[in-house]
């Protein structure tokens, strides 16, 4: 058996008196696409942000490539975050930089690459997400789908080992979802390891290696898409899946 690329153990987070995460654990194998589903407030987003310590977990440990992450050490933390790409629901492109500069800045300022070399790589990544001709535009001049693709290119340029995607298409018009899904699908086919929170279960079931159903800060059930969507053991999982299938259409 191969060792997991990312191992998460007993992650917990409290905001005041509210337990947002109550000990979430799982392993991610190389090339996995793990999909987190569950109602709003289930802790999916908090869990993803805990994985790269944008939110500091109160308890729990994380290993990347069998190395434990010591997030209290700033240098270790920055090195770790470079290896874990993050895609946000609302894109969070840097508004004062063009698409090209957005993709380049991490390589230049974090990895210390030369501007020319980083620029070439940035053009390559933008080409990969189909935005080469838009590389001189500023975020405010791009559509939502284009912004999200730039943000994916920005993450890819750092050569991440794992990508975290926090509802990457939730803020998009239905028409624009497809172009982002195509990019994510392409990534999956190329063997990128990903953890994604989403409500798009049609897309999820066609791609996921495992579906994780969360509610109230806990992982209630997990399994293959077929198991979760058609033969779920937990009544709550079945209820959620039938509702969300109604909302987001047939799976395919």
């Amino acid at each position, binding site marked *: 058996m191969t060792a997991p690329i990312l191992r998460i153990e007993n992650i917990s987070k409290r905001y005041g008196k509210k337990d947002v995460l109550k000990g979430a654990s799982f392993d991610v194998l190389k090339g996995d696409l793990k999909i987190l589903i569950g109602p709003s407030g289930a802790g999916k987003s908090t869990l993803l942000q805990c994985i790269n310590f944008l939110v500091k977990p109160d308890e729990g440990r994380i290993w990347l490539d069998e190395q434990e992450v010591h997030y209290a050490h700033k240098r270790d933390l920055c090195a*770790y975050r470079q290896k874990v790409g993050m895609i946000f629901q609302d894109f969070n492109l840097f508004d004062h930089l063009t698409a090209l500069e957005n993709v380049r800045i991490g390589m230049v300022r*974090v990895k210390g690459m030369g501007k020319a070399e980083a620029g070439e790589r940035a053009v390559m990544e933008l080409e990969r997400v189909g935005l080469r001709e838009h590389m001189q535009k500023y975020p*405010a001049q791009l559509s939502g789908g284009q912004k999200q693709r730039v943000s994916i290119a920005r993450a890819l340029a750092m050569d991440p080992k794992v990508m975290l995607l926090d509802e990457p298409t939730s803020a998009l018009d239905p028409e624009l979802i497809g172009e982002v899904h195509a990019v994510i699908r392409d990534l999956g086919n190329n063997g990128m390891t990903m953890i994604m929170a989403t409500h798009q279960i049609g897309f999820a079931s066609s791609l996921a290696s495992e579906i994780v159903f969360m509610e109230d800060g806990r992982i209630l059930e997990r399994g293959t898409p077929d198991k979760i969507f058609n033969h779920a053991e937990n009544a709550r999982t079945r209820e959620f899946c039938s509702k969300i299938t109604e909302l987001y259409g047939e799976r395919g």
Partner: protein
Amino acid sequence: MERKPGPVGGASLFSMKDREYGDTMPQKCPHIPHVFKVIERMPESLIAIMDALPYLLQGSMVTLVVVVGAMGLGFALGAPLAAGQVYGHPALRRFIAVYVWFFRGIPLLVFLFLFYFGLCTAFDINLSAFAVAIIVLGLISSAYQSQIFRGAILSLPEGQFKAARALGMSDFKAISFIILPQALRLSIPGWSNEYSILLKDSAVTYALGVAEIMARAHFVATRTYQHLPLYFAAGVIFLVLTWVGTKGLRLLEERARIPGYSPKGL
């Protein structure tokens, strides 16, 4: 007293002493004669202004150096203060809050005297009045500027900082390359306000003997007794400098605008 039909030779056109209006003169309005007096002296005033103008304009260069120096010092201190107050350790935030309270709370004149006559004498520091003016105005301005920048930083979406951290940037890099470049752009309108305030505050430094516009106007006025024209000229020079500076900052704002980002105003 003998009645005369109008202005007589030797008497100036509007001088009341030499002019007889008889019953038509409204005696109840004593300020009207003063108005005539002012108008009558206009040629003389113009000459006084023309004479003093080169001297005053040299002073405007001093004023500009003081203002630009103080703005620069205020910026160099204000930007890190703002970042520290938003993202710093709680102890640092408290220190900055006290700093801002201190420098905003003491009148400029008190500060100038305290620094120049007080501290410089007590500790035997050999600083010119000019240097003290820049330092004191710069320190006070840094407190105000830090609050302009802080407001701009707080107005940025939280996701900008998160995204920078997610790329592996340290907080210092995230602030330097992501947060401040955006926040400073948003600060330019508030910043041009700070320019006009500093420009006017700089006149107070005449009390230390800095040879800026006000000091020079005062110097000439007390020697020539041409108070009105000289202070008037000083006021006009300040107005022109305010206009030029604000216009320049407006151009900067225009140039720094991110396409499609900030709404285009008029």
